[in-house]
């Protein structure tokens, strides 16, 4: 169950919603068969609430959107990438505590 303020990114909308978006965008690359990804979901939901209006936060299903996953050389999930002005500025691969994500986000606010 994704919170309302967590967006869904796809191969189709990635360019406009992430790369050309104004301000930082946090993207959680995940898949249905990935246990740790499911465990990370509540953390992503909480971040979306904490940073509402400051950071765009969303998820991209790598199964359904292999093009984007391939483009950003995703080789392990969960992988959370922070984009700013169309480029990757931070990445966190694997499960991490919420505090780690906050530290990464705060650097780019």
């Amino acid at each position, binding site marked *: 169950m994704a919170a309302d303020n967590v967006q869904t990114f796809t191969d189709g909308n990635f360019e406009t919603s992430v790369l050309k978006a104004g301000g930082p965008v946090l993207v959680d690359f995940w*898949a249905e*068969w*990935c*246990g*740790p*990804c*499911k*465990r990370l979901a*509540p*953390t992503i939901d909480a971040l979306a609430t904490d940073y509402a209006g400051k950071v765009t936060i969303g998820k991209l299903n*790598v*199964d359904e959107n292999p093009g984007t*996953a391939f483009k950003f*050389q*995703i*080789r*392990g*999930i*969960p*992988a959370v990438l922070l984009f700013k002005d169309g480029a990757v500025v931070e*990445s966190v*691969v*694997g*499960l*991490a*505590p*919420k*505090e780690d994500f906050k530290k990464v986000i705060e650097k780019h606010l």
Partner: protein
Amino acid sequence: MSSLRDVIIIGSGPAGLTAALYSARANLKPLVVEGHEAGGQLMLTTMVDNYPGYRDGIMGPELMTEMRAQSERFGADMIQGNVTAVDLCEVPFVVRTEDAEFRTKTVIVATGASARLLGLPSERALMGHGVSTCATCDGYFFRGQEIAVVGGGDSAMEEAMFLTKFASKVTVVHRREALRASKIMQDKARANPRIAWMLNTEVDEIKGTDKGEVTGMVVRRVGSGARTEVALSGVFVAIGHTPNTALFKSQLELDANGYIITHDGSKTSVPGVFACGDVQDHVYRQAVTAAGSGCMAALDAEHYLEGVPEHLQT
């Protein structure tokens, strides 16, 4: 400062959640601090065929979801996040998380074990970029490619076989001639035509740090010392586990490998602190044994609480 708790359980794998189930049913209102690897190692598995009661098997993550819901049904409280510090020197014990502090009469340690790494700088740099400790999470990204699995135990065999569903070739690298894996797992793996073997061989370096993704590895023959470079795009590390006991160093008695030493069931060196699951077991390491020891810890904590001195009763 929050009120005094009867039981705080640190960890949410089969040991922690079974301890939660039993202590919740004993009306002890346990608080479970789940940890950032919530659900434990079973979250990284696929089908679990050896947990009794599921005749057709059950997916590891689903089993953990069931266990969690079952302990919540009886009133266990769950909080996300990690424990950042504990103070077990005096009662009540103190357990701190990223944003709260709790006092408790008993602590059940069920922090489990995490995947051990080779310890190479290149391995850390390329983690998530071709280096992985989770075949079920990351195998998908290696469709049609050549990869290696490092390790010689049951988990290494299982990962290698799972990965042949995606990879064109999986090379098992093990530092000894003999595998540690059980015979049934070895036989299965050896019969798989997509698995190649590099025994008596150690990994010296993973190549690709300059490119930001794995391009190969340098291996060394044990004995001759001959080094060769092998081109591949993924390295899965399955060389065992290390117990998550950093929080308890100098507070609980640990063995030479860092596991918590338990005696008379689940008792640790500190009265009122109990341990269960893989954090105190490097021998059996099964979901069912972890669950069993979680039950023991909850019962031991319950008995201990019955004898807690008056001045500590709420």
